[in-house]
């Protein structure tokens, strides 16, 4: 049986959460659970309601989209990476599939729970948003470089 102390200890080991004040970590643990996902299983499905944020502890996740004739992987996320941002803003719908490419160990957060805690404590909300903004910035920069087609110039 995993308890909140276990999750808190794991969160402290991640770059994403380790600088958060102790009391906020405890607060966030209430929104999280440890999960294991089998290789091949979907963690997020395009178009479905977005309620999950995954902090990947072990394994690799493919961010995929359907194209005529099959699937296209547009990014991969592995250890200490974050999967799932669509729970942050309306309409709270996933825009890509996320599929476990290997067996995954992760902390899954309930997006509604995180939003509620951020709304009730704006300092926590600000600290969380700062972290998400940094990840989203890096993701956006990488995506723009992909768009630039830098190997074909």
């Amino acid at each position: 049986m995993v308890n909140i102390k276990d999750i808190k200890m794991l969160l402290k080991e991640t770059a994403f959460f380790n600088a958060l004040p102790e009391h906020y970590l405890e607060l966030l643990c209430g929104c999280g659970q440890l999960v294991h996902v089998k290789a091949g299983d979907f963690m997020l499905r395009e178009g479905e309601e977005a309620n999950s944020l995954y902090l990947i502890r072990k394994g690799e996740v493919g961010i995929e989209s359907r194209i005529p004739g099959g699937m296209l992987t547009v990014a991969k996320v592995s250890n200490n990476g974050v999967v799932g941002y669509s729970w942050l803003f309306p309409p709270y719908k996933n825009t890509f599939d996320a599929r476990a490419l290997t067996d995954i160990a992760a902390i899954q957060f309930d997006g509604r729970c995180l939003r509620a805690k951020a709304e009730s404590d704006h300092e926590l909300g600000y600290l969380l948003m700062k972290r998400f903004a940094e990840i989203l910035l890096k993701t956006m920069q990488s995506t723009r470089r992909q768009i630039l087609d830098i190997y074909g110039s």
Partner: protein
Amino acid sequence: MDANSAVPNAMEPIPFRIETIKQELPDCFTLTLISPSESIETIDAINNNNNNNNNDTGAANFAPGQFNMLYVFGHGEVPISMSGDPVHSQKLVHTIRNVGSVTAALQKLKLGDTVGVRGPFGSTWPMKALKDQDVLLIAGGLGLAPLRPVLYRLLSNPDQCRSLSLLYGTRTPETILFAEELTQWAKKIDVRLTVDAAGPGWLGHVGVVTDLLQGRDILPASTTALVCGPEIMMRFCAQALINQGLSPSQIYLAMERNMQCAIGLCGRCQYGPYFLCKDGPVFSFNQLEHLLKVREV
């Protein structure tokens, strides 16, 4: 390359015969060229042009990073980097992408056809400076070809560096160059591949090549990075390496411009104060940093 000493023979192409042609990708092929006389004399003539002393290639006729001018008679001449092992001094290996009229003509040539060769020209990857270093080779697309001689040398002489890693990015899994060799290299060194997009069968990373730098345990004090690929890719990589703590003098780039004489006389490849054919193509980033910030018109 000392332009003055090269002048007597540097403008005269020496005929070489195509010994092998390997189709690497639909638009990319590797030619192995050999002297038609199959004697050492032609290679010696080439060697006499190679006065570069910044190499450690033994009996080689070129140093990693250098290029030849390949002349397709009736079509013209193009600068192409060496992609073979420098110690195989009897053969010149060039990996070429069909991107223009001369390279298209090169792709149409058959076994036994003749190609004119001038060279080798240009500066070299800093092989001696790699001693006791963690060497990071970062390649994008066809940029792996000019780095392959470095790989051959360091794999043959593991004592020449402390560790060796290759980070390689391409558009898709189908456009990976030297795929069979990459599999072999991955058994000996740390090889990481990434593509911009892939189907479900792809086991490597998906994302830009700078992603592969994230989360690596880089020791800035003992790391030297050699970066080769399109200019925009090298610029992003250099910035990512600096963000990881490397100084500009620890980063080397191979630049590309339209070259004509290859000995710094015609001015065609001038880049700021440099002639890329003579002063380059390999530069340390601290030589280029200010120039790469200049917006070209």
